[in-house]
């Protein structure tokens, strides 16, 4: 307990509470109106998605192009549960059921496919996510191609903030644990990691399942904010969107993912005013950033390590 209550952690808690409080206040006095709130929700959901994908792709080095598939599972499971039992507590049942089922699917998919490497794994996960989407498309119970409407709106800023912070905290702590170190060693050199006695399959699957779990949470939060979901929302392009955030922020940088999620949401919100040119500018930005900064905005560094370095230099 002594370790938990150090100065740094208290400062973090105060900082987070301040962020939450300020935004909650701005929502209450309507400075952040409905339109900005949508962007806020998108930012938080994208942070959860990007951080969880970063665990798989950035830290464990397993290139997944199917993250949207797990998001779809979370969204659909929780949407069905909250629509069938519209009570306040069913929101949590929905979120956790969605996340656990997504994690189970991740386990079933992960065990066979994580034997593959690099591009092959990418294309296999892409294929699996497409299969998930097509299966959902063909289940009439959840509305097929037309989608599922009338999902009660339980997601609000408070829950969004709690889940986002919890996701980041859990994943950061996982990475700093011995399991996380094992995952990083797989990224650095799988053969070397294996010869040091690390069960590489176990850790790859573990990272993949954790990633799927949080993608499920993100999907559930999404479904319970926007009233309406359809299979097309979770297609191949969504997976790419998430990967773009991760790569832009820097593979292996949690703060990078958070920063990139916010930056991309702001860019895309700003470009709303030029709907026809929006995607053209977005894609050009993507190409230019990749050409001039292929390691992403943050590389593998974290924001606080940058500060620490500066502080050391000053000393």
């Amino acid at each position, binding site marked *: 307990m002594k370790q938990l209550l150090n100065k740094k952690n208290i400062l973090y808690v105060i900082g987070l509470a301040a962020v939450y409080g300020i935004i909650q206040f701005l929502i209450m006095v309507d400075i952040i109106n409905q339109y900005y709130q949508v962007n806020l929700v998108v930012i938080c959901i994208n942070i959860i998605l990007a951080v969880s994908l970063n665990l798989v792709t950035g830290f464990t080095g397993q290139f997944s192009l199917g993250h949207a598939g797990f998001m779809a599972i979370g969204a659909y499971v929780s949407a069905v549960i909250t629509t069938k039992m519209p009570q306040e507590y069913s929101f949590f049942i929905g979120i956790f059921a969605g996340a656990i089922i997504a994690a189970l699917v991740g386990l079933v998919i992960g065990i066979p496919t994580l034997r593959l490497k690099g591009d092959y794994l990418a294309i296999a996960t892409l294929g699996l996510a497409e*299969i998930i989407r097509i299966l959902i498309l063909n289940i009439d119970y959840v509305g097929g191609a037309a989608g599922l409407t009338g999902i009660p709106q339980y997601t609000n800023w408070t829950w969004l903030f709690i889940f986002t912070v919890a996701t980041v905290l859990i994943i950061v702590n996982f990475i700093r644990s011995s399991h996380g170190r094992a995952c990083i060693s797989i990224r650095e050199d799988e053969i070397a990691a294996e010869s040091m006695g690390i069960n590489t399959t176990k850790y790859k699957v573990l990272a993949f399942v954790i990633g799927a779990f949080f993608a499920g949470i993100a999907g559930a939060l999404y479904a319970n904010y926007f009233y309406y979901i359809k299979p097309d929302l979770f297609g191949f392009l969504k997976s790419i969107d998430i990967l*773009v955030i991760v790569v832009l922020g820097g593979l292996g940088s949690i703060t990078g993912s958070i920063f990139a999620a916010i930056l991309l949401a702001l860019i895309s919100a700003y470009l709303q005013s030029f709907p026809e040119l929006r995607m053209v500018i977005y894609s050009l930005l993507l*190409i230019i950033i990749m050409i001039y900064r292929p390691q992403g905005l943050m590389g593998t560094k974290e924001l606080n390590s940058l500060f620490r370095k500066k502080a050391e230099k000053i000393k």
Partner: protein
Amino acid sequence: MEQFLQQLINGISLGSIYALIALGYTMVYGIIKLINFAHGDVYMIGAYIGFACTTYLKLGFVESLVIAMIVCAILGYLVEKIAYKPLRNATRIAALITAIGVSLFLEYGTMFIVKPDVRTFPAVWEKKSFPLFGDIKVSNTQIVILVVTILLMILLQYIVHRTKTGKAMRAVSTDSDAAQLMGIDVNRTISITFAIGSALAGAAGVLVGIYYNSIDPLMGIIPGLKAFVAAVLGGIGVIPGAMFGGITLGIIETFVSGYGSSLYKDAVAFAVLIIILLIKPSGILGKNQREKV
């Protein structure tokens, strides 16, 4: 039996289009190990060029096909020079994201210029179908698709195996450092590979426009992915593998639509891919490479 043969014919003509696109994927992957996501969009641009040539310039089929192939070759060349070349030594994932960026740029750039509506491809010739035997029919479009595909594949085999450029391409794909030491201009060879692959995709675009009669700026995404599946199926980096994989995928897909449900045909294509990857990751015609430490 009759339905079986009819499906087989439809499958082969669809599959030969996949094969044409898959060739470009496999050549580019073989030479610089990049999944060129923009390849499906080059195919879409090919369809639009074909559309412009036949509708506005009133050109015939062969001229339109050749013009589309040339324009796509130039496009492929430019894409490589501008977007991929600066990333030659960057991580694979950065190159992949760039490819996705190029893909989005081509899709939405085209959409900005031609507007997102679906356009009807004009009939280049009168549609006829010839009875083969019994109720089995083959249309003149299907014959043209097959003939053009076979001709282009023979031409490609000739270039790759009989010319100096082809030899350079094979050398670079085996070991680009060694090839450079032997005095091969690696950059030029990569550019040529992109140009040839894109020309084939352009040809596929025109053929699809004629076959299905409708084109739109996002038409390249799904065939692009499927062609990649086809390339992996046959063994990525192996040219006969792309042809074989494309035609196999086309046949599987028409059989699933014909006997099962067309809603599941994309799912089956990906399921086949995953099964192949798990059983024989190097593809059906691919060679196994031993991992070196």
